[in-house]
């Protein structure tokens, strides 16, 4: 009986596997963007208005910003496993990528808020608006205009960094690609395909942000 290796060439069936990976990548990137942005806006606002909060949150922001994502993912994963937490790789990836996104978004938000000239806030207060109304109707919309371009940069980084979530067992597009490479050794085709797909995801985001920027220009 002839022995056959399990190694096979690419088949059409593999596109399902890749499509699933693509879907997982999109889901993880989207949820981490939402979680990280909401967290970042709150954290950025708190860090702008309160010196105490700024001092207290600086170490965590600095660590999240400065340690490579792959190390954060591995360390946090091992630590949480040892501590007895078990959760789905999707939730875990969302939390880890979202935490990074929140830390870097917070600084973009802070810069945006600081860029709003104080006279607008003063005008708003003089019309009887309270602090919350001033923030919602005046400061945040103006800060958003300054922060949009750098924030889009962060979203693009996040989409690409989601490719690292394979190390915690999440089968995203990159992990799916690696699995197929191991089996088929079609390294070139698969990696070029992956690069192309990440480009296809990111390009519309930056294209749309440029259109939005023009639309809200003051």
């Amino acid at each position, binding site marked *: 009986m002839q022995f056959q290796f399990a190694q096979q060439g690419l088949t059409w069936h593999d596109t399902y596997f890749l499509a699933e990976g693509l879907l997982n990548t999109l889901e993880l990137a989207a949820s981490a963007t939402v979680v990280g942005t909401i967290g970042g806006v709150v954290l950025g606002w708190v860090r702008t208005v309160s010196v105490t909060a700024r001092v207290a949150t600086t170490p965590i922001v600095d660590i999240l910003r400065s340690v490579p994502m792959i190390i954060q993912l591995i360390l946090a994963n091992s630590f949480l496993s040892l501590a007895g937490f078990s959760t789905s790789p999707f939730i875990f990836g969302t939390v880890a990528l979202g935490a990074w996104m929140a830390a870097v978004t917070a600084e973009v938000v802070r810069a945006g808020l600081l860029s709003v*000239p104080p*006279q*607008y806030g*003063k*005008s*708003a*207060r*003089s*019309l*009887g*608006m*309270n602090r919350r*109304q001033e923030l919602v*109707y*005046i400061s945040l*919309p*103006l800060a958003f*205009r300054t922060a949009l371009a750098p924030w889009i940069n962060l979203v693009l980084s996040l989409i690409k960094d989601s490719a690292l979530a394979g190390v915690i067992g999440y089968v995203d597009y990159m992990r799916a690609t690696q699995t197929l490479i191991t089996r088929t050794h079609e390294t070139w085709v698969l990696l070029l395909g992956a690069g192309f797909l990440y480009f296809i995801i990111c390009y519309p985001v930056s294209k749309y942000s440029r259109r939005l920027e023009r639309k*809200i220009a*003051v």
Partner: protein
Amino acid sequence: MIEIRSVRKTFGPLEVLKGISLDVNKGELLCLIGASGSGKSTLLQCINGLEPIQGGEIIVDGVSVHDPKTNINTLRRKLGIVFQQYNAFPHLTALENVALAPRVVAKRSRSDARALAQKHLDHVGLGAKAGSLPSKLSGGQQQRLAIARALAMEPTYMLFDEVTSALDPELVGEVLETMRLLKAEGMTMVVVTHDISFARESADRVAFLHQGEVCEIGTAAEVIDRPQQPQTQKFLRRERQASLDMLERTVA
């Protein structure tokens, strides 16, 4: 009525207001004049609580402005203020600038607020600019927009903080015209100004502030044409010289 009672205001070691007392009566136009640093702008910002005070009391229609129990946001609806820098909200059209506070502070419906805003834009002669962003407006138009925005809260008092100082000379006229219109309609106004001729023709009373104190107060004729205090005389002489110099520069 606005009652200002021995108000003291310090910035660190610097005492800007040294116990100022004066009243603003309903329907009058009171001009505050004085050199830079005399405390006139600071006093104006204390009146609507934008600046805290360290002593004394300011009472607007029987309510103490700096009392912690006072709801300052409610009180501010009575006190419209227009600043030196044009600070129309840059991301909102002229109409939205005026309609915002009536909608979110006075809780009017969206359509109500927009109708009210259009009325006030028409009032200051900006009816045709309702859809323009502030960046498309001239300095004079932005200042009139700021006046319309304050008026839309239907204040009892209007405070003007050197509203023409940052304007090109040819744009000053239209803003003063709007202020004269308000005066003719009976609005109570406190106007901080360097424009002595505006003070002389429009003010019911003029207060000359010198180093954080009211040095001289009276009708425009008394204070500007027959000043009694040597500081007032000196200030007015210098202001006349400055405006003559400017005239010469403009002609040359």
